[in-house]
């Protein structure tokens, strides 16, 4: 395919011949409304919103079914094309309940957006004349359906038929009685089901987990990488800080990355945000008793100074930078460092798409740094465990645990550690792709990352 030039709204653009016009419009950030088209699902041509004017064509054409050709002259603006969009949009809204005030999609709804862009007319139909369908249907897998809000773009049904190939969702009925549903008695049931919530451009499919928890315009999105397994799916962490309270995460959303996860994430990863807010280790404990920082640091130095063989365990979910710091620190202490990866393997979890059986997010990073993976069974004098799940398996006379979450087993000293959302760093996914995660969550009383702890313990300032 050769590089060609086309003109859109009197401006020249270079692109690959045969590329879908809508892809070019999206890529160049030109405004084009659409419901049914999706980069992962391709064109379906049913919503008819992405109409553009093409010189030489008698009628407006849909951009999602137009391949670009040399010398093509396209107009996305102008009275004619805008009136076409406006009239089609009016039809989309005829049987829509217009219940934005109580709709969870409000704020990220394409119908709302396009109405503000192209609509702005008064309703000409009485509520009584609208076609009514079922509301709040629990489809299963945390997905709720409101058939009246649906624009029948078929993204969800195409996702289950083309992507997961599980075929749970379909459209039944004809004309304005068409609606999305499952087979009688069947549920939406696959490990990727909640992606239909993101795919849905309107409020027809909402997440049972997220809905009514927060208005989306209060949320801040920070790009990150899911720590559910070694795949390293790109996500957005959507979070909000209410006054005086600690900042909270409300949901994970997939962040498109063609090299890693495409446009989707698995439900397990999506819901893993909950773990970041439950059962957290927030206090410093000496022999199980809450203590202050200076006491804890003094206790730490005493335990280390008592001498004997030291083993350091490192969690394979830690960022590469943290692992490096630990590696250096182990060298200084003359301690044996290991990060057994076998502990994270879960064969029941993996599949041939986005879910990996290696559930440690930075397993590849551990391998790259050449950190030992054999767990020593010999008794040791002191164990310093940076959040590795197998800390209790080591026979140690004394133990220090730096942990993000409360763990079973006793430790002489417990220090709280910041989880990935509260620090920043790099991960290497199972395919060797390095990905950076910025810090997303700022607590009122911030926790320290492994690097910060090591700095402090080596005499640095907090």
């Amino acid at each position: 395919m050769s590089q060609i030039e086309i003109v859109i709204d009197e401006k020249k653009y270079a692109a690959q011949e045969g590329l879908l016009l809508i892809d070019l419009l999206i890529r160049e950030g030109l405004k084009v409304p659409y419901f049914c088209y999706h980069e992962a699902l391709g064109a379906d041509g049913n919503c008819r919103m992405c109409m553009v004017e093409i010189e030489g064509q008698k009628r407006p054409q849909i951009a999602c079914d137009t391949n670009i050709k040399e010398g093509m002259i396209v107009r996305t603006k102008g009275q004619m094309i805008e009136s076409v969009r406006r009239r089609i949009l009016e039809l989309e809204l005829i049987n829509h309940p217009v219940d934005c005030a109580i709709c969870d999609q409000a704020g990220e709804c394409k119908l709302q957006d396009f109405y503000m862009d192209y609509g702005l007319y008064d309703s000409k139909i009485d509520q009584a004349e609208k076609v009514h369908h079922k509301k709040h249907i629990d489809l299963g897998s945390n997905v709720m359906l409101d058939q009246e809000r649906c624009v029948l773009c078929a993204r969800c049904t195409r996702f289950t038929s083309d992507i997961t190939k599980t075929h749970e969702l379909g459209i039944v009925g004809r004309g304005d009685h068409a609606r999305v549903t499952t087979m009688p008695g069947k549920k939406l049931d696959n490990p990727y089901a909640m992606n239909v919530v993101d795919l849905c451009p309107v409020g027809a499919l909402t997440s049972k987990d997220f809905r009514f928890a927060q208005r989306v315009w209060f949320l801040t999105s920070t790009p990150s990488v899911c720590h559910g397994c070694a795949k390293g799916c790109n996500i957005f962490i959507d979070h909000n800080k209410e006054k005086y309270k600690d900042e909270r995460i409300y949901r994970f959303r997939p962040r498109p990355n063609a090299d890693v996860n495409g446009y989707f994430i698995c439900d397990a990863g999506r819901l893993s945000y909950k773990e970041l807010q439950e059962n957290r280790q927030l206090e410093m404990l000496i022999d199980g008793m809450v203590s202050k920082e200076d006491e804890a640091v003094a206790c730490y130095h005493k335990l280390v100074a008592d001498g004997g063989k030291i083993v350091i365990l490192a969690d394979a979910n830690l960022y590469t930078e943290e692992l490096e710091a630990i590696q250096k620190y182990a060298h200084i202490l003359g301690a044996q460092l290991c990060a057994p990866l076998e502990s994270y393997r879960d064969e029941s979890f993996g599949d041939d798409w986005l879910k990996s059986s290696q559930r440690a997010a930075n397993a590849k990073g551990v391998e790259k740094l050449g950190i030992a993976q054999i767990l020593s069974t010999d008794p040791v004098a002191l164990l310093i465990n940076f959040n590795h799940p197998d800390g209790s398996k080591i026979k140690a006379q004394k133990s220090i645990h730096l942990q993000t979450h409360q763990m079973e087993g006793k430790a002489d000293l417990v220090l709280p550690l910041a989880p990935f959302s509260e620090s920043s760093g790099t991960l290497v996914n199972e395919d060797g792709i390095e990905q950076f995660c910025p810090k997303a969550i700022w607590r009122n009383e911030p926790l320290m990352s492994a690097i910060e702890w090591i700095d402090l313990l080596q005499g640095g300032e907090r």
Partner: protein
Amino acid sequence: MRECRIVSQKFDIYQSHKLDIAKEHGAYSSLKDAFALSPHEIVEIIKLSGLRGKGGGGAPAGAKWALMPQDGAQTSYLAVNCDESEPGTFKDRQIISKDPHLLLEGIIITCYAIRSHSAYIYIRGEYSQFAKILQEAIDEAYGAGILGADVMGLGYGVDVTIHRGAGAYICGEKSAMLESLEGKRGHPRLKPKRPEPEWYFGNPTLVNNVETITTVPYIIKHGANGYRAYGTEQSPGTLLFAISGHINKPGVYEAEFGTPMMEYINRYGGGIRGGKKLKAVIPGGASTAVLTAAEAECAILDYEHMRTIGSALGTGGMIVMDEDTDMVEALKNLLEFYHHESCGQCTPCREGTGWSDTLLGRVLDGKGSNEDIDKILELAKTMDGQTICVFAPAVAIVIRAFIGKFRDEFEARVNR
């Protein structure tokens, strides 16, 4: 006006759907001639004959056949469209119940011409009785060695399978029909950018109307010029015109293209019922623009002429309306049909058919306004040319013709 019997030759013969009776009257006699020709030669004859698709569109059949791959490297199919659901159209059911063997004969020749060994006949779900007759004919043909691995010992195999639809008008649209035949929802497909065959499970497929295929044996027997002896230069041959409504003799009668409409209505339809005056005619199935009596007076039944008077020949299924007809009620009847039958894929059609029906309902109930009538016309504009298939544009044509030609009747309802 000449009598012509190309497709309807055996319609009046008692039990003509039985194989032995059909054979007595010449069924399958064209096969020998056909197999003496090469597939390419048959396609050329069809092209020369000027045969046009008889399902409503009137596109040249030969050109469509020529799109099929000629090397036979890939499995190909013939899909015969018998999803006859257009209001006012009921010609195909006559063929499959009165002369199914002529259809099978046409199928065998067509399959040979496009190098296909399997044909599917997609029959409208409601035609259960007619499907049964056709199935019996197919069974008889298999029994007699006419269908199957070796057609009449001519060394070519053809299998014919009936598929009954589930009752959706849209499945008469060829790509929706193939979707339905593949076991999916009958939704029209996006149209290809350049001429190409249809696709059935990824294989090239020819889709033709029942009557088109049934015309093929005559053309093979009498040659392209034999067929061109009827009709006009651009619309050669004949069509099974159907006539219904306020007339004395509703039915299906074959006539050549170029026949004046009134002559047809008076001679075959037996004139307007009760000696009443003619008010309007829908010329070619519900989806063509309605003609006023004055327009019908000078209408001539061929594709070109009907287009010049702003309508279309369509399927040739005429619906005749006398002076007592309420045009508002008549349009409401049609809009209810389109509202019920829109497949619901494209937004303008899914919502436009429903809303225009609702608005016209307001007008009929005496609760409407002139604004409602204008809104219906605006909806027609939105539905025209902005959807995947031609369903919505057809609704737009119907609305514009009815309101445009009989606006005073609509306004009278509003001002009541």
